[in-house]
């Protein structure tokens, strides 16, 4: 197994508040890694640091062994880190196909519809993205992530606002993605995480509380205390 992404001593403080402190974290190529934690545990700050949307206060980030700490967000995307927004962020006024074409860096051209096929939106390519149902907009967001052909796909709370039936479809989609890619999944939905993730990292108050397979994490007493609220 090769390490795809690594953080060493990654920290971020806002004013006096330490949102993320001293996180050492590794993602191996080909895994589906979930990052979970109670509200305010620093999950969103953590992925923002990895995707480059905010700059860390301390620590380094390595991607495929290269130090990317100082790279701006768009450069990290170019290196293969794709980020899908927690709050749906698509081009509302452009067609579904043009959304994906922009992601594939062929704007105005005829980009491959393969990403749309993978998420099941190929039939709606010419529709204006803003007129899609909410669940479909989330899928388009994922398709745009795929069109980037990323080495690491970060999904930030992808199932937020989806119906149960849509979540079932989504699980199938992520399994499919995991066959030839690496996924970093930030999620609230515990059953989903337990079912999908090969490994789970639990964040609490900006630090790693536990890490391991779903079974190990489930059995961890401090996780139960902090997150599951039992014990």
């Amino acid at each position, binding site marked *: 197994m090769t390490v795809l992404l690594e953080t060493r001593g990654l920290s971020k403080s806002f004013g006096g508040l330490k949102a993320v402190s001293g996180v050492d974290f590794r993602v191996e190529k080909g895994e589906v890694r979930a990052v979970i934690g109670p509200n305010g545990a620093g999950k969103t700050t953590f992925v923002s640091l990895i995707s480059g949307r905010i700059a860390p206060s301390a620590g380094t980030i390595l991607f495929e062994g290269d130090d990317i700490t100082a790279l701006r967000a768009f450069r990290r*995307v170019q290196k293969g880190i794709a980020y899908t*927004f927690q709050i749906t*962020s698509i081009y509302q006024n452009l067609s579904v196909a043009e959304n994906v074409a*922009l992601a594939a860096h062929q*704007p105005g051209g005829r980009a491959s519809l393969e990403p749309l096929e993978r998420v099941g939106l190929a039939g709606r390519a010419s529709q204006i993205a803003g007129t899609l149902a909410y669940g479909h907009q989330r899928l388009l967001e994922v398709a745009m992530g795929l069109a980037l052909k990323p080495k690491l796909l970060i999904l930030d709370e992808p199932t937020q606002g989806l119906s149960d039936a849509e979540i079932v479809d989504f699980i199938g989609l992520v399994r499919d993605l995991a066959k030839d890619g690496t996924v970093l999944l930030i999620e609230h939905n515990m059953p989903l995480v337990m079912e999908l993730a090969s490994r789970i990292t639990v964040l609490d108050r900006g630090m790693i509380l536990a890490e391991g397979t779903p079974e190990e994490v489930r059995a961890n007493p401090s996780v139960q205390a902090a997150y599951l609220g039992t014990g």
Partner: protein
Amino acid sequence: MTARIVALHGAVIVALFLAQFVASDYAVLTITRIMVLAVYALGYNILFGYAGLLSLGHAMFFATGLYGAALGVTRLGMAAPEAFLFATFCGVIVSIVIGFVALRASGVAFMIVTLMFSQAAFLAVLYFGDITRGDEGIVIKDGQRMFPLFGVPMNLADPVLRYNIALAFLAVAIVLCLIAVRSKIGHVLVAIRENESRTAMLGYDVKRYKLIAFVLSGSFAAVSGAAYALLFAYAGSTLASIQYSIHPLLWTLLGGAATVLGPVLGTALMFLLVDFASGFTSASLLFVGVALILLVLFFPKGILGTLRQRYWRWLP
């Protein structure tokens, strides 16, 4: 590029070429002015219409071209073509420098920064009145507007020559705009306008694209300013004032932002309206104000923008 796009834009240019044979002397002069100013509006539209950045400081770039050309001819002893190239070069440099600084701000702050830089430039024109001759302005003498081109003597005071030079500028500007907006750059600019953070997270260097739009836009303004000074033999501080930053905004809004021909149409209509109005009132700017308010309230997409939305989806 589809045939009807080529046909439409080609037809506009051909019609303007033919107009000189039927128009009166006064109309020829008016259309010449409109064509020169339309280049300014076309450039403004790249930044405002396509990239979605509202600048209130483009008079600064227009004035750079204007004074670059006027001073080049009157002070630096350049022939008109040299002065034009010199002024354009100055415009490119000023746009790069100002763009680099101003684009650190966004939203309302960007608008105010551009306004402030432009106002500082306007005040500088007044402050260095010894050189710029302030309100009174620089008048280029007829002798300074004659130059040989490939051995053929040219005189910019000749209305027909002037008309065709202006038309050439406009034609080149339209073609460049068409190419730009249909290229990858144009599409990425629209993407930035529609959703900036998303575009950055798709791996596009948003700052670079915005700077490209800013410099293209500022350079068009400088070209227009330089042509204005040389063709109409005048450079005055009014042309550097805030009013001249607002004009291209109005022209673009009226004709239709983010349509290639919109700014040209808007410039023509507004110019004619003000020209018509100043026949019976000294408060012709009143029409500018009323037009802005009505556009924002009832017609935000402008003429061609509305036509595109309703009928001609293919319009670039």
